[in-house]
């Protein structure tokens, strides 16, 4: 075992033990002994069940209060950005599934949007609606997962079963849509892989009728639960100014009252054609962020319903740019040109122009962005992933100081971190 001292930052070495002297103005100060207190170091993780994967935090404690928290990350680092430089643009799509493995659809979506911006491709209207529908289904799944696990971590077990029961319906729906429940790879550059079948549409409509009363069910378990309220209200408070300065995004930023949502400000996909509101909190605490996520599930139901109603019944699901986008799968086996197109795109990729773009997408955790530098040719020269989980961990020390050890669990949870995305 390595001694703990070696793993710590040297910058804080001198603060480790503090000698507390009795106030000299105290009448009996000369007779009282000097109290010597020492800060305790506690390693939390990397195998702690509530750290959502492999996150380690070194907590410096004074009694049970956190004086300083140093996150130690990288246990799940797989060098995804390096791998991206070695493959073609199409080949990177399955890698994005493994970033935030709970919500793979969003990563696919954010990546494909970035490449489309690089290649200047316009996606057909029906595909835009399909993408919006699936992205919002994924947002519901993400929030259900968050709600279940966060409540479980804090000590309210019941809601976990309810949230996961309903999440299962949507995962089965994904299974029918693309053949996988988690690692979906359904989005393609320029469109989507396959269309909704009548059975899928029917199932989704049934879910939209079924789901809103279930949200009320989740809420009943929590909003009247004294433990939940005591452990979320006023915990992990961050002011709007600090939240912006730290670069937080998504519900974590909106909980502090900052109205910033890329779905509104960038107006991509079918979002400008849907009516929905962006819930914004007031106090910047864990409870407000919880409230926002619950409201977002309701808004997602509205968005999906509108998309299903407005979506053109017929239409292409893939942009027709043969040099970049894939041919329809059924034609690959029957048509020689399509087969050559598919083969060339997967073996050599397409020739991207020189240049660089940044494209951010509002995932359910926050702004998931891709910064792509192209030096021409079929592979990205540099691909940087702006992962919300990683950036949220930057604020962990600031947000946890002064709270109890047990609140550290609440604070990881409130960011909705997934280490696959954090460590990349």
């Amino acid at each position, binding site marked *: 075992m390595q001694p703990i001292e070696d793993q710590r930052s040297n910058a804080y070495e001198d603060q480790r033990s503090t000698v507390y002297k009795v106030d000299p103005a105290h009448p009996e100060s000369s007779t009282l002994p000097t109290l010597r207190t020492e800060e305790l170091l506690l390693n939390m993780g990397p195998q702690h069940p509530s750290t959502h994967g492999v996150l380690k935090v070194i907590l410096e404690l004074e009694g049970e209060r956190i004086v300083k928290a140093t996150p130690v990350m990288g246990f799940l680092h797989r060098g995804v950005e390096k791998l991206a430089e070695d493959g073609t643009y199409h080949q990177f799509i399955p890698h994005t599934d493994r970033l935030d493995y709970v919500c793979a659809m969003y990563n696919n979506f954010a990546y494909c949007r970035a490449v489309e*911006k690089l290649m200047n491709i316009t996606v057909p209207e029906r595909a835009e609606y399909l993408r919006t529908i699936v992205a919002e289904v994924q947002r519901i799944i993400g929030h259900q997962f968050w709600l279940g696990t966060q409540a479980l971590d804090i000590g309210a077990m019941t809601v976990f079963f309810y949230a996961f029961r309903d999440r299962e319906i949507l995962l089965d729906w994904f299974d029918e849509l693309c053949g996988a429940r988690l690692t979906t790879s359904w989005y393609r550059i320029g469109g989507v892989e396959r269309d909704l079948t009548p059975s899928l549409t029917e199932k989704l409509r049934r879910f939209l009728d079924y789901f809103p009363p279930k949200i009320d069910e989740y809420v009943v378990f929590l909003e009247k639960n004294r433990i939940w309220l005591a452990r979320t209200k006023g915990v992990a408070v961050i002011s709007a100014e600090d939240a912006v300065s730290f*670069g937080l995004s998504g519900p974590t930023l909106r909980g502090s009252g900052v109205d910033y949502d890329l779905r509104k400000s960038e107006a991509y996909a079918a979002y400008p054609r849907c009516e929905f509101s962006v819930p914004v909190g007031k106090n910047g605490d864990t409870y407000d962020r919880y409230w926002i996520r619950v409201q977002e599930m309701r808004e997602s139901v509205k968005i999906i319903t509108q998309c299903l109603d407005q979506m053109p019944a017929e239409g292409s699901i893939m942009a027709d740019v043969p040099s970049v986008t894939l041919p329809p799968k059924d034609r690959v086996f029957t048509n020689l040109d399509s087969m050559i197109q598919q083969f060339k795109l997967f073996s050599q990729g397409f020739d991207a122009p020189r240049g660089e773009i940044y494209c951010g997408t509002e995932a359910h955790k926050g702004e998931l962005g891709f910064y792509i530098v192209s030096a021409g040719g079929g592979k990205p020269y540099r691909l940087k992933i702006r992962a919300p989980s990683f950036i949220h961990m930057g604020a962990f020390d600031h947000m946890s100081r002064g709270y109890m050890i047990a609140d550290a669990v609440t604070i990881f949870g409130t960011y909705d971190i997934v280490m696959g995305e954090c460590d990349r």
Partner: protein
Amino acid sequence: MHPIAQRLQREFPGGFVKSVEWRGDLAVTVRRETMHDVAGFLHDDPDMDFDYIVHVSSVDWPDDEERFEVVYEFYSIRKRHRIRLKARVPESDCEVTSLTDLWKGADFMEREVYDMMGIRFRNHPDLRRILMPDDYDEGYPLRKDFPLRGKGWRDTFEFLNETRP
């Protein structure tokens, strides 16, 4: 030229190198000595008001005289505009001034750039590796001269070489 780039050129005639607008993104390159002043101006000036840091990144161009490029991306939540601020850094003096005093979020993002590309940030409060292990000594993985499979450290783990039945 984009009005923000024009303004920067007027305010920092010595530090401004070039501005590029492509696919709707504005990218301004400045000299690295003036990087902190330009960033301070972008952060504090009421017309600029870039209060939100999006990401910090780096690019390696091994054939160029000034090998590395540090990339910052800022957004203004009130003004709804964004800018990419870049500076070139030579390999011999691989250091830029940290922007952690302007945006708190720059702390972890700059640490990642240091870890992956080896660019040091002056005045950074805690410049250590963040994703790679603290005692990792094979260099900086995202540099172009770093092989994809690593430099051999990975093969020293015994469990990787076990023959499977």
